[in-house]
């Protein structure tokens, strides 16, 4: 046995080193966020205040929610493009169906969440029962959901109840609704990743065949994974309406690829099985702060995609280099 040939302390040190390399992409993302914040703070007063935290979190939260669903799907080894359609549909439904009564808002909130989960579950079913590629299935359902949103509301419009808007922008103990929601989201994640479902999703993404042989029902896991993704897309849509105050049948497409980018910048592997929500949140904040920087530097806002693209490449190069050095140190 090789383990016996190597002194035990060496083995432990090797293991620690390997773990560090595994976390390299996430650490690189954290460093990038710190650097961006430092630059931001150098250019502008009051960056490290609660107000700034509240504002930035509000700006980032829709993306974070969308990217949470995407993270779960990426851990499963899939991808979900349909969240774009679901976000559009969600805002459109909220803006046209909430009406003025509390009851109407409450019922439709639940309905929108159910639709999100249901649409995701259908994605999962199509992927498993017909053995189709997630990329294609969700590309198709994205189109279908966007179409549905356009049928309901051909152009941006509708309105949200005042109470809904103020609930989305309230503060409690100096922290805005968005910060509280982020805290709740993270607590949820800390719980979720330790549940059997969380572990099974990650395991299935790591090796689908092994998971199947170990008794995992791929259909059920896919329904749960994509269902959760749809649910988070619906949550993102609902939160988004508190910020925009309208419904938009086309707004969702702005979140599809950034949701993947946020996750990847944060160190989630596109090959499934590795990474966590902390990385995704860091990734989403990086993308948000870039927007702020472009604003304070008062350069053309068109620089924002350029910088985001470069950061995305740097992050993914860092993780692919880490991956390679991990492989080299092992073989």
């Amino acid at each position, binding site marked *: *046995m*090789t*383990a*016996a*040939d190597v002194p035990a302390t060496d*083995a432990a040190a090797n*293991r620690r080193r*390997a773990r560090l390399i595994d976390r390299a992409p996430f650490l690189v993302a954290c460093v990038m966020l710190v650097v961006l914040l430092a630059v931001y703070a150098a250019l502008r007063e009051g960056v490290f205040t609660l107000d700034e935290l509240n504002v930035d979190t509000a700006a980032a939260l829709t993306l974070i929610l969308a990217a949470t669903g995407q993270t779960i799907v990426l851990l499963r080894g899939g991808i979900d493009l349909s969240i774009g359609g679901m976000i559009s549909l969600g805002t459109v439904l909220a803006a046209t169906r909430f009406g003025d009564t509390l009851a109407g808002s409450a019922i439709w909130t639940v309905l929108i969440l159910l639709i999100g989960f249901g649409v995701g579950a259908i994605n999962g079913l199509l992927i498993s029962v017909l053995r189709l590629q997630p990329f294609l299935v969700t590309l198709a359902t994205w189109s279908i959901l966007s179409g549905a949103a356009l049928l309901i509301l051909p152009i941006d419009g509708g309105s949200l109840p005042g109470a809904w808007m103020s609930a989305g922008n309230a503060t409690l103990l100096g922290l805005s609704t968005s910060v509280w929601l982020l805290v709740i989201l993270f607590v949820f994640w800390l*719980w979720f990743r*330790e*549940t*059997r479902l969380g*572990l*099974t999703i*990650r*395991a299935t*993404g*790591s*090796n689908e*065949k*092994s*998971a199947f*042989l*170990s*008794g*995992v029902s791929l259909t059920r896991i896919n329904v749960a994974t994509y269902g959760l993704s749809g649910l988070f897309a619906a949550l993102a849509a609902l939160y988004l309406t508190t910020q925009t105050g309208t419904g938009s049948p086309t707004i969702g497409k702005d979140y599809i690829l950034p949701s993947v980018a946020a996750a990847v910048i944060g160190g989630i592997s596109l090959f499934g*099985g*590795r990474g966590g929500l902390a990385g995704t949140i860091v990734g989403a904040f990086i993308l948000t702060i870039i927007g702020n920087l472009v604003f304070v530097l008062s350069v053309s806002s068109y620089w924002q995609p350029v910088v985001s693209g470069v950061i995305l490449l740097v992050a993914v190069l860092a993780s692919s280099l880490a991956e390679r050095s991990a492989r*080299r*140190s*092992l*073989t």
Partner: protein
Amino acid sequence: MDLLQASAVSKRYGGIAALSGAEFHAAAGEVHALLGENGAGKSTFIQILAGAVRPDEGMINFDGAPFRAANPSAAQAAGISAVFQELSLIPDLTVEQNIWFRHEWRSPLRMIRRKALREKTLELFARYAFPAIAPDQEVRRLTLADRQVVEIAKALARDPKVLILDEATSSLAPRETEWLLGLATRFAGEGRLVIYISHRLQEVRQVAKRVTVFRNGQTVAAHDTASVSDDEIITEMLGRRMERLYPERRDTATAKLALKVRGLSAGSRLRDVDFDLREGEVLGVGGLQGHGQRELFQALFGIGKSRGSIELWGREMTARGPRQALTGRDGIALVPEDRRGQGLLLSKSVRENLTLAVIPRFSSGGILSARREKALVAEMMTFLRIKAKTPDQVAGTLSGGNQQKVVFGKMLLTEARVLLLFDPTRGVDVGTKGEIFTLMRDLAAKGYAILFYSSDQPELVHVADRVAVMQNGRMAAILEGAGISEDGILRAAMIEKH
């Protein structure tokens, strides 16, 4: 009363009968060997027992009641656990997460209790005297042998009444093999049943009291192991008398050096290796699994980074990489370890697979010539007697032995005369094994130089002219002539040298 009785079990895939009326009876408290060539129906049979496949016909009685499992978990719940050749471990989960996967202990909040996983894992390891493996190690960091051990732990963790070991020792070193055989004996001694499948008759003799032989989907014999000879068993498996598994050894080596390797190192697993390989020689590579053999073969073929000098037919190889290695008559060809992952495009035709490495041989100016390709394919299919309906048959539908022949054919078409064969008989039936050994000796006689690694030591002893034994990434010894024996290889592999 037998614990497990299967009668008249049949299973068809499309038009092909995998099992037709197989019988199997085994009692509690015994280790029962199941033997047969590849394609004899063993795999299908145990997949039925393990719940991965449903039979078309037949009766299975288990523990006094009719048995029918819809899926692997149902079979496990009923008390049958299988350790398959294809492992069912999750690379990104730790050893302990894998062992208890889907059977974790949970807190009232439905969270997995990590402490319980650790305790139960150590308990299980202690109970069956497992080799030392860190429970918190991710499985993807383990050697193949360690993964096999974890897979066995996972099967035992379900506390089964029947444990099926399918070629479980194929990646294990001798020490671990001994441990597993001991475990099987002890497990059976607890009043349970072990179904033991192996190509290695020696092991079967050591551990199994009874043996059942399958051929062409049917049961051809069942007897006490002690009452039959190896020859009789092989005859039963093949249906004809096997002339000889190993060909006559002829000394065809010349003085000419085909490969001269000095100071070859790669990563931490291959350190400062020196050896010579002569024209017409078969040089075996042995040693415990995971001691640098794979890295040696990959470095010679140019996969990954390596340092040191490699001289091919007297000329230094400077640029490395499979493309630099596969350069016609003066090149190197590799039959890789993982046939399905590295050797074959399973969804492509036999033709496309055979000619993949030699596209320049039938193209001019980048344009393919179908006629010339056809000729190359026909020649190689005849030469290796590849059994395919047409050259356009999809490679993944061939039997294991024929798939391996396609990989050989692909490498032979390159005309490279230095061949690296990494465990070329793994998962190959006895008949094809014999063909492969004969082919190796014939090629050596034609002036090819062959480097041959096998996880099965008798193969090295009977086929190689010399055997280089590796230990901790170095050449520990090179055995010649009378010095080549299983005992000698083991001794060279185990003696500590620094």
